[in-house]
């Protein structure tokens, strides 16, 4: 019986085969409200492809036999939204604040997966790890949402001198006019 290992092997959380095809485009929100599965007294049926996609995603994020120490990092503390488009099943994972009694989300608390008909992970975007190509500069439809940073990256070239120079910009400085009213302030204004 082999018991000892000099370096305890950490379970591999992300060991599934990943194709990582950056041309896969995630669909937007559907117009219809998502149906919440699991309400008391109602029965639902889930086909095998959908279940398999969910299992693949869950195993990839939360390896079987492991349990994160803190509540928000656990499988049961997420919401899973499933959208099927053609052969591909898309799964969107978000933190379920109520599950851990939290009021505010964490940074980088989402993920999304595209699972192919053969059960492979066609695309995986975990917040904080993977670039989400859909976010960033507006692009022409159908090109997969790849960024075109060259277009916009060239515009501002003002430089701030760290040796005390006052010309130009200060890092962290906001430059644009306020467009969004502070929800906190407007709430205050409404109360006596």
């Amino acid at each position, binding site marked *: 019986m082999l018991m000892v290992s000099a370096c305890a092997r*950490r379970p*591999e*959380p*992300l060991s599934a085969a990943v194709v990582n095809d950056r041309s896969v485009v*995630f669909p*937007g*929100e559907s117009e219809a409200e998502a149906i919440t599965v699991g309400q008391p007294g109602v029965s639902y049926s889930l086909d095998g492809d959908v279940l398999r996609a969910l299992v693949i995603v869950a195993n*990839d*994020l*939360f*390896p079987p036999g*492991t349990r*994160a*120490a*803190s509540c*928000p*990092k656990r499988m049961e503390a997420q919401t899973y939204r499933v959208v099927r488009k053609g052969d591909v099943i898309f799964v*969107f994972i*978000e*933190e379920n604040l109520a599950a851990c009694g939290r009021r*505010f*989300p*964490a*940074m*980088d608390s*989402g993920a999304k997966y595209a699972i192919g008909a053969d059960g492979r992970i066609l695309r995986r975007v*975990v*917040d*904080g*790890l*993977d*670039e*989400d190509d*859909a*976010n*960033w*500069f*507006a692009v022409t439809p159908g090109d997969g949402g790849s960024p075109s*940073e060259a*277009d*916009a990256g060239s*515009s501002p*070239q*003002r*430089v*701030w001198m760290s*040796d005390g120079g006052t010309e130009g*910009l*200060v*890092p*962290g400085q*906001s*430059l*644009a006019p*306020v467009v*969004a009213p*502070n*929800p*906190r*302030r407007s709430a205050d204004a409404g109360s006596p």
Partner: protein
Amino acid sequence: MKNFGPFNSYADALNAACPLILSKPNATVVHLQDSSPDVARRAATEYCAWLYYTPSELYEMSMLADQSGPGDFVSGMRSCSLPPFVDDPRYSAEQLKHIFALHNHPFGTRLSANDLRFIESMAEVHDWEVMTRNGKVRLSIIAFFSKSQDPAAPTCDGFYQYVPATREMMLWTRQNGQWKLDVHGIVTWINERTYRLEPQ
């Protein structure tokens, strides 16, 4: 936090916070990205903290919240839970002005849609704009990154910043001690999880 500042300007505070956060274990893993991407994913660690302004008119940084305890590494999620209020025993919570929600992106990726949602949700408890000795400063979220291939000496190479009051997204880069604004755009939401930038 001990051994940090305090600083007279938020720019100086950012200058100090960036290399400090990136020097934490596995705060940047770009040096492993090509040679061992799976190791890089598992090791990648996010740290987060508030940069805040005190009644003494100084900028300070809160304790770093680790993305997770040691028992959280099993999870594939890489979120960082930043408490909404800084706990500074010298002051009451209302006296502190929360300015920048700081964290790192171990692969240098852009701000996630959830990063934007996080800072927008902070508007429920914090002002979007506060007056400081440096003038008005707006609440924003910042993700530092390094491009360093040397894990022993990670450089601060820049950060992404989003300002909810103006919906500005910025990419600041740092070279030879100089900061440059590389990208400046206004965010529009395509759907709940996708944002786009309109170049300014």
